[in-house]
């Protein structure tokens, strides 16, 4: 039996040893916002947060997680249901096309901003190595700048 805390909720699960977190989320818990893209941590579609750090869940065995907090795209919004600044910026810049990679992109961007409040383009290019086939990269850069500005703005003005 493995205990996982996902989006603040504890789950006790009977799982095969070594099962990657991605498939627990998707097939066992029906949390399908986290996507399968490559299975080898190359594309980032499966990105989640582990204690706030972006991780690729397709190669993350559940047995290795311990008591770290898992947050998926479904749990990124604020406790009041308000979109995370990254999600709001993504809508404002009309980033997604097919949208398949965007859960991972949003999670990667949110983790980046938590670490670096105002990244420049070079920092974004180096940090966001997730793949997008629709070519939304330019809008992602703009949306990250927008989210950074919103977070920096005094409360009530952003």
């Amino acid at each position, binding site marked *: 039996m493995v205990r996982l805390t996902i989006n603040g909720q504890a789950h006790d699960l009977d799982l*095969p040893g070594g*099962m*990657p977190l991605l*498939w627990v989320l*998707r*097939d*066992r818990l*029906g*949390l*399908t*916002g*986290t*996507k*399968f*893209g*490559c*299975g*080898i941590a*190359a*594309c980032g*579609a499966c990105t989640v947060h582990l204690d706030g750090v972006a991780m690729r869940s397709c190669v993350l065995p559940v047995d290795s997680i311990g008591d770290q907090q898992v947050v*998926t*795209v*479904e749990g*990124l*919004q604020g406790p009041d249901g308000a*979109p995370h600044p990254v*999600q709001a910026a*993504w*809508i404002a810049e*009309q*980033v*997604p*096309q*097919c*949208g*398949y*990679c*965007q*859960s991972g992109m*949003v999670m990667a961007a949110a983790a980046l901003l938590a670490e670096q409040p105002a990244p420049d383009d070079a920092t*974004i*290019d*180096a940090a*966001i*190595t*997730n*793949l*997008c*086939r*629709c*070519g*939304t*990269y*330019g*809008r*992602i*850069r703009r949306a990250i700048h927008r989210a950074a500005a919103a977070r920096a703005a005094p409360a009530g003005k952003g």
Partner: protein
Amino acid sequence: MALTRRMFLVAGGLVGAGLAVGWALLPGRDARAALAARARNGEVALTAWYRIAPDGTVTVAVPRSEMGQGILTGLAMLVAEELEADWAKVRVEQAPIDPVYVNATVLMDGLPYDDGYHAGERTAGTWLVGQVAAMLGVMATGGSTSVRDAWQPMREAGAMGRAMLQQAAAATWAVPVAETVAEQGRVRHPGSGRSLGYGELVAAASRLDPPATAPLKDPASYRLIGTAVPRLDIPAKVDGSARFGIDTHLPDMLFAAVRQAPQFGATLARFDAAAVQDRPGVVLVAEVPNGVAVVAGDTWTAQAAVDALPVDWQAGPHAGLTDARVLADLLDGLDRGEARSYREEGDPDGVLAAPGAAPVEAEYAVPYLAHACMEPMNTTARIADGQVEVWSPNQAPTLVKWLAQEIAGVDADAVTVHTPFLGGGFGRRAETDVVAQALTLATLTGGRPVKLTWSREEDMRHDMYRPAAVSRFRAVLDDAGRPRALVNRIAGPSVARAFIERSWPWMGMDLPDNTTADGAGDTPYDFGALRVEHVTRPSPVPVGFWRSVGHSYNAFFVESFVDELADRAGADPLAYRRLLLEGRPRHLAVLDLVAEKAGWGQPLPAGRARGLALHKSFGSIVGQVAEVSLAPGAGLRVHRVTCAVDCGQPVNPDSIAAQMEGGIAYGLSAALHGRITLADGAVVEGNFPDYPILQMAEMPAVEVHVVPSREPPGGVGEPGTPPIAPALANAVFALTGRRIRRLPLSPAELGIG
């Protein structure tokens, strides 16, 4: 992605007129029936395209797949504009499968050029395919046709509904219809100040006879069309709630993984199910079309079991095949073999053979490419109680339905096909290979739904690839450098024919395939005497529709060679193109716009250069200027791409910009990295490290300029892709003097590896 261009060599007279307006289809049947069955909570289907609820909510049924192009929003805008709906109350849903939603344009695009060369074949092919198409009304998303196809019927449906609502209001108030005004989801009578919402009027309106015609708005009064309306699908795509095909999650569901014959043409000889059957979670092991699958309690367990399954394959006719041999066969096609002509003007051979003609010659080649949709191929199916339900991210729901009928042995009305969001399509999801496998498994699970998901490796090694293709140009210039004659001989497979042979072997006729010559046969340039011909060489590798199809290579061939001619003529590439485009005002306008916005001719920082390309595809003209540098160690960098597009009347300018950005990125992946290679008849590349796609750090700044226009809309999903490869190659030439005639632009090709 022009899904069925060859198959549907449809006679204009047979289906064109009737299908252009959904109302006229199938006399005696109320076209609204398709949607009326879905009405709930007092909703009324006023036309086949939308329902209106008592609270005024308008739900538009969109019969095209949403694969990132924003089509749900774009088509709903067409209805809402003419309906004078309140956009805040507009919702969208996927339309059911019904002949009223046939994609007529994807059929009509299959007509060969009206050049008189294939009249006999057109008549023969037309009759048969026309019968099939008209009877069955295939729904498909591809060939950048959605807006072009829906432009008339969906606006008309909106206008007719508006007229009926106004008529109902006028009858209620006993005033002339002409005294009423429809706006923002209400009908008003300014004379008396009365007004009623659409929700209050729709029941009465639906009992009226639809008017024979309803006038369409003057474009000058558009409120939605031409504005950057935010996309309706985007909020769900940032919080994980959007459901893609792969996200289908049903009670009691099983999960499957597959292994397919690695070598093309190989077959399954035997497998040892007992070796994995007893693993915890494994439910069954079964043969499926082109492979063997394991069904289990989760995808990971199924994948691990199928990976461990001992399997023997029987080698097929393509054992030992390499991509070098494919290329050699294509190049052989440039020397011999019967060619089909797609354009013929004057006597180019005579000019080329004249004494002292000194022809300019060049040969170009491009490799196979994979689609590499981010969402791997998948389908979920359930066969229970004589009913079949399929959840498949697909571009052709009608084909999915036919397959379900065939495999489950049921009638059409026992099949329901759901088309969730597609995590990329690009033409790959016009194919039904994964659907057949999932349905086969669903016949074995005792009524439990089963979701089959391909691994990335299966997806990449079992694609229907963009074909490898080659081209040889021979041209003669006059003393001033102007072309007097040009022959463009292309060799490659026929995608349309391959698609038909997979789907309907009995229809596999040798007919002209426009997709092979798209963007070459219809060149806008004045080359003097001209012949464009294509030699079809069957591909041992399955080939399919790949974003922009033949345009994806013909644009590279033609736009590179025009640059070569400009260089021979000692002319500026922009000036030279202008010279050859006399009498083509729309092409010239795009060319001039992109040149101006890119600062063509203006000084650049040291070590940078620009390249230009112009290409028309799917009814839209796109010009692009790429700005590049080539630094030791850093390789080729694309700094900036300027893009101008004339796609007729713009529907949603921000969606157009997004499609240009996306088309450029897709084309850049191909131009910089894309190459599928073969060893021993199997694809070598299996995942993203082997088949790289463009990364964030490689994405240039892209600016898109949309030409204002009132012409009928052109497509936008594909036209952004063709020009980028030649723009890049021409920029490399401007920078280094090295002419790029093969893709991708690898270090070896660039002379730095």
